[in-house]
């Protein structure tokens, strides 16, 4: 078997690494960069991924896709996407089953397919670096990703021609990348991961070679992009007040502004003041308009983004409660994700945990490094280390109207399995529907619907006399499986699964087929 690479498929940036001998190498692409922007663009000739896609975003905003991770596993009408729909230059539409897809040039693409293009790019330059075929990978996801989001990530891997050996939670990967297993000291870690699109907080115990996740929490809609957006909104309003023009109507201008704000945000992590300068950003009645702002101070930025920073607290507190751990019992706090460079975020983390976070962690690469290390565990190159992760959301079914009955509570170590017995509620009822949900709300309508299982062929008997035995399993990747059988005969009733989101098997096959490389290098000859 060849090497298993570790891939951090991020909202804003992605990274791929591999274990070589006794160390981990973060693989660079042809341009010499170790980080690949998670941007995909469609031009008239071609499809661009990464740096080149990002660079031409300003001139091609409606056909450049960034932050596709935000759409993975989501429904188009999700309230979380409302803001995104307003501000994204590319069009977000609903697929036949309600999933969020994007439309470019009158063609529709699912987020799995776009993500696959990014994965494929990394697969290609990893292959170039290693000089051998790469077919297996570990792909990371935010710990707080639900089942639909994980399935979508798996599908993306398949489309890209990768056998995804494991879907790994990013904070757990970070803990592994941090190398707690190397100095072999037992410790409790808190991984504080604020990336481009998501926030995860995970509390883990490392003991005797075993990384055991105690609790995880987070917000899959809180990330660097939101911080950028804070600045963007401020400047748009400012511009409107000064010039009476609404920049949001102009996709090009908006894209330029967004890029500039991202740059300014990064500058403000080091300098107290940043400037934004966008000449010819728009046109007014009197002629061209320019956006110039010399005095963007860190204080202003902190003010604008204060509500976002506040949102970091509650998930941390909840995770610590669920882990039965107090801040003083935590040995190390690891900061992961580019956004943890922002001083206000670092201060918040310090305030929550009562200690300075650990330095010496590369927040952009550590997740990929951890994923590669997990690859080594799987191939057996690294032994005596194992990760025990948990499911982040409670799993349950709908009973009685809108009520959620929990079958597997959140933060249960996976893989795990639970069985429950149910009775019919009508005479002669010969089928039952099990609607499976993930979430913490007592009402199913506020949780994520994973799918419906219909069990048919039950014997017709009066109410309450037919019993159905249902087994819920969450595998080591955090994906949910449900099987059931009618108890008195021991026979299994026919089970049809209607998953609520994702690609059908046929769609997946078609899209994979579309992207399957027909051509492979002839021995010794590499494509230019």
């Amino acid at each position, binding site marked *: 078997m060849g090497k298993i690479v570790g891939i951090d498929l991020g909202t804003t940036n992605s990274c791929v690494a591999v274990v070589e001998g006794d160390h981990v190498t973060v693989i660079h692409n042809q341009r010499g960069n170790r980080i690949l922007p998670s941007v995909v663009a469609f031009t008239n000739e071609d499809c661009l991924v990464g740096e080149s896609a990002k660079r031409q975003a300003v001139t091609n905003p409606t056909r450049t896709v960034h932050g596709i991770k935000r759409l993975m596993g989501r429904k188009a009408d999700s309230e979380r996407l409302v803001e995104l729909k307003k501000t994204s230059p590319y069009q977000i539409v609903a697929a036949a089953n309600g999933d969020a897809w994007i439309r470019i040039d009158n063609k529709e693409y699912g987020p799995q397919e776009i993500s696959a293009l990014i994965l494929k790019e990394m697969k290609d330059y990893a292959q170039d670096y290693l000089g051998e*075929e790469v*077919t297996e990978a570990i792909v990371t996801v935010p710990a707080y990703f639900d089942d639909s989001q994980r399935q979508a990530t798996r599908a993306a891997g*398949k489309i890209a*021609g*990768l*056998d995804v050996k494991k879907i790994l939670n990013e904070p757990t990967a970070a803990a592994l990348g941090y190398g707690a297993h190397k100095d072999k000291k037992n410790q409790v870690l808190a991984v504080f991961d604020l990336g481009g699109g998501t926030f995860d907080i995970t509390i883990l*115990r490392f003991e*005797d070679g075993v990384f*055991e996740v*105690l*609790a995880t929490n987070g917000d899959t809609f809180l990330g660097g992009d939101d911080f950028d957006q804070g600045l963007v909104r401020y400047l748009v309003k400012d511009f409107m007040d000064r010039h009476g023009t609404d920049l949001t109507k102009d996709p090009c201008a908006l894209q330029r502004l967004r890029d500039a704000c991202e740059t300014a945000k990064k500058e403000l992590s080091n300098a107290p003041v940043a400037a934004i300068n966008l000449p010819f950003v728009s046109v007014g009645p009197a002629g061209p308009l320019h956006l110039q702002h010399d005095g963007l101070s860190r204080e202003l930025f902190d003010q604008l983004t204060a509500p976002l920073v506040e949102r970091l607290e509650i998930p941390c507190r909840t995770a610590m409660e*669920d*882990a*039965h751990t107090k801040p003083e019992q935590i040995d190390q706090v690891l900061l992961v994700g580019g956004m943890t460079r922002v001083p206000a975020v670092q201060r918040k983390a310090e305030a929550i945990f009562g200690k300075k976070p650990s330095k010496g962690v590369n927040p952009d690469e550590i997740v990929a490094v951890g994923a590669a290390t*997990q690859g080594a565990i*799987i*191939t*057996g190159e690294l032994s*005596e280390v*194992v990760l*025990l992760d948990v499911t982040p959301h409670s799993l349950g079914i*709908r*009973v009685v109207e809108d009520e959620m009955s*929990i*079958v597997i509570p959140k933060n249960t*170590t996976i*893989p*795990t399995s639970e*069985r*429950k017995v*149910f009775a019919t*509620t009508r005479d002669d009822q010969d089928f*039952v*529907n099990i609607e499976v949900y993930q979430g913490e709300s*007592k009402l199913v309508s506020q949780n994520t619907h994973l799918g419906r299982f219909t069990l048919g062929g039950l014997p017709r*008997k*009066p109410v309450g*006399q037919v019993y159905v035995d249902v*087994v819920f*399993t969450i*595998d*080591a990747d955090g994906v949910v*499986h449900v*099987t059931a*059988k009618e*108890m*008195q*005969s*021991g026979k*299994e009733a026919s*089970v049809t699964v209607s998953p609520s989101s994702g690609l059908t098997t046929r769609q997946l096959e078609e899209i*994979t*087929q579309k992207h*399957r*490389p*027909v*051509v*492979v290098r*002839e021995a010794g*000859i590499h494509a230019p």
Partner: protein
Amino acid sequence: MTKSDAKGRVLIVDDDAMIRKALARELGPEFEVVQSSDYAEAVTCLAERSDICAVVCDCNLGSGPNGIELMKQIRQRAPGLPRITVSGNVSEELGRELIATGVAHVVIAKPWSNGAILDAVKQHLLGSRAERPTRVEPVRACPRVEATLPARILCEIWGHAVELQTKDISIGGAFIQTGSPPPLHSSLELSLRGPDGSSVRVEGRVAHIVSPERAGVDGRPFGFGVEFVRLTPQQAQMVQTIIDTASRPEIPKQVKAQNKSVTADVARVVKRLDPAATPKRRPNEDDVLQRLGGELASLKEKDCFGVLGLDSNADAPQTRAAFLRVSKEYHPDLYARYADREIRAVATEVFIILKQSYSKLSDQVSIERYKNSMGKPAGSVGRAESEPPLASAAPVASMHAPRVSSPSSLDADDLFADVEQTEHGHQPVLVAPLVSEALNHIAHGRHGEAIDLFKQALDIEPGNTKAKIWLLVAEARRLKVSGKIEECVARYKEILGLDDKHIEAVQEVRAFHEEGRRSRGIFSRILTATGGGH
């Protein structure tokens, strides 16, 4: 080969000497016969001899454990040994239940038609001789073709033909998708229809089963593997034709189109990359799978301490260390490297058992609680799989969302209800899982265990009518199987006292009155013939 090897040896168990003589007469020409008159003798005989190839046994064995108990014992110790039950007072339902629960392979009512017992022994014998019980190996080494073909299965256990579908097929056998497979080693007849309309009927035997639980973990289809037996040359040829038509490769159109668009300036070789296609399982993977399967089987027999490799004196630090140690050996990630995904699936089952056992022993309080429960009857000990995880203390954190207590009246539009919630409202956690598990035992015919659990549930909550009724049902069924019809009917009448619309009770009491009339007739016949009595 000695003469005794040429003829198989059949054990006959019946307390009636005349019946034993009759059975010996029928089987004698083709088999050597060994006779026992009661449970104890039969067990001794089986313990002393290793050459018994089939057992024919009456339900009623006088005093002491009855024939059903004997069959169950035999099933546990020698699952492949053909078991044929002969009985004078077995109803059709009971017979089906015995077969469905795997207690007996065949049930034959007395008086039996001439040669029926001999046929039954011969048919089931051939099945078990072909089995190699020591190895779990894939039955078919021949190349398989993935094909969803219609398959019409006629299996004695089911009684009628069932239309199912194959998942794959080879010249050696096929895999049939269904959630309710017939018992292992059952004989069946299979009619396959090929994609071009050709069809063939073959005989087969159930070689292995993939349970819904295992399938649920891995997302693969559940069902059973059929090994074709005694294929005639014509049948073999027809099967091969079906395989050939099913596997004819189609050249995908896209590949053709993309070939055309290849630019000419670089010479390229056309090759399909398909990393998702699983390569054939390599030899060492078979060993791994077998080892894991064996481990899984042995773990299921152990209590929580045993699962972790400890004795019951272990304290919390020891259970923790043991859990960490077994995690590093059996976590499914460590088996993700293998091409065959079943390996990871089995490892997942193993790991879940380890985890559930540890969660009962994760701190001193839990350990004490578990040790106290260990004294109780078998049903309550172990990884009661239907029991939801109790909120165990750190380090295995599993905090519960508060249990939802629902009103006891339900909306008419509901299609679904949670047993625990509709019947018990806000019950304490302990009762409901006991009832669920007990129901599970009933479904599998384990009446003894079910009775124990219902009794426990009633200890905790004496007013639980539902549990009381189920207890009576379990007792009644058990009594029926052991032939104690009067007591059985008495139980059903008790049920009717609590719930006069209880369907099973109504039917059984009615059937008893009718059957009573019939069976008395048979008894009188045998009484006059033998001069003795049951």
